[in-house]
């Protein structure tokens, strides 16, 4: 088709379609969080001492929420061509450094015998597996949304979508997670979220081309 003819065809329909992307993202996030909470309550149930452990649940969910709050605006920016990451990427770095310092500080203040238990939670840190598994459907939903946008950095956008889905899953997992040690939480929650980010980056490389 000649370029001028193409322009004539396109110009017949100038109006931007549908509600804004940010609205769809917000809806997807609420749905993903609701799914994660429901899934974790059905599969594992809330921790038995939920009321007594409520401050810890809040702390773990809060840490995960911080990751979600940093990655959601970043994802929105990466979905639009010509936008910078606007300081959100360094903020994620600051969060990770904060976690590392918490781990270091909390382990340093412990007696030698306690450290391993505090770090691993007295067994294999299963959350590093459960959180990414739980996050997969949320990540799929975010990728579905992202494919309708125009990410010009597919790997970075995929990474961010993965991290965001992981953060939502971690918020839900906090309801059931029985280990309450700062060293454990500040290590394995970020590790789980970073694992989701890595998988998202890999998927983004292939699934987000347009």
């Amino acid at each position, binding site marked *: 088709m000649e*370029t001028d003819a193409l322009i004539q065809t396109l*110009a017949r329909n100038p109006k*931007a*379609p549908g509600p*804004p992307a940010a609205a769809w993202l917000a809806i997807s996030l609420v749905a993903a969080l609701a799914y994660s909470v429901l899934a974790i309550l059905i599969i594992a149930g809330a921790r038995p001492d939920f009321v007594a452990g409520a401050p810890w649940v809040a702390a773990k969910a809060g840490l995960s929420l911080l990751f979600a709050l940093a990655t959601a605006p970043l994802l929105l920016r990466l979905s*639009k061509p*010509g*936008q910078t990451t606007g300081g959100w990427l360094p903020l994620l770095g600051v969060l990770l450094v904060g976690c590392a310092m918490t781990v270091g500080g909390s382990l340093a203040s412990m007696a030698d015998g306690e450290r391993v238990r505090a770090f691993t939670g007295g067994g294999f840190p299963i959350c590093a597996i459960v959180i990414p598994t739980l996050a997969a459907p949320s990540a799929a939903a975010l990728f579905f949304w992202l494919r309708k946008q125009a990410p010009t950095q597919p790997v970075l956008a995929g990474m961010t979508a993965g991290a965001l889905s992981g953060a939502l899953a971690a918020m839900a997992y906090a309801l059931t997670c029985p280990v309450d040690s700062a060293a454990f939480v500040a290590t394995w929650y970020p590790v789980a979220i970073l694992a989701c980010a890595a998988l998202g980056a890999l998927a983004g490389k292939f699934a987000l*081309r347009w």
Partner: protein
Amino acid sequence: MEETALHALMVRSLAGDSGAYTTLLKHLAEALRRYFRRKLFQQPHEAEDLVQDVLLALHTKRATFDASQRLTAWVYAIAQYKLIDHLRRSKRRGVMASIEDETSLFTDEGDGTASGDIDTLLNHLPEKQRETIRLVKLEELSVREAASKAGISEADVKVSVHRGLKKLSRIVKDGEG
């Protein structure tokens, strides 16, 4: 046309103004054509395909334009994405997308039709090769027409064009000229 004018056209377009949208797309098509011809100087047809590709992408992704951002930055990011995608797919060596900013898409310097670049390159060739390539490839004459015009045999035209193109591709690869 300046950023402010283009931006205003885009805002009117998204509100449903077909006339503004036609003007905008035509203007962007020209800027894109100049830009891609500069980037893909041996392949004007590929450049035109890419122009259409980007126009279509601008259209289907028009909802991702944020009125608070610069239109030129938005268009440039999409053009650059499509160009890199194109280069990766064709795995062509010798033509590289250099890292620039969006202003390079909207500069008026040069007519962008690549004839300037080609003239410079052709000057590296011997007279006979230069002349035959000009006749066959640029004026698109048949081998027979070119032969009679240059006053040499048809076989001579074919050989000269072949050798000349080979030499040109070597020059482009080595980054001379």
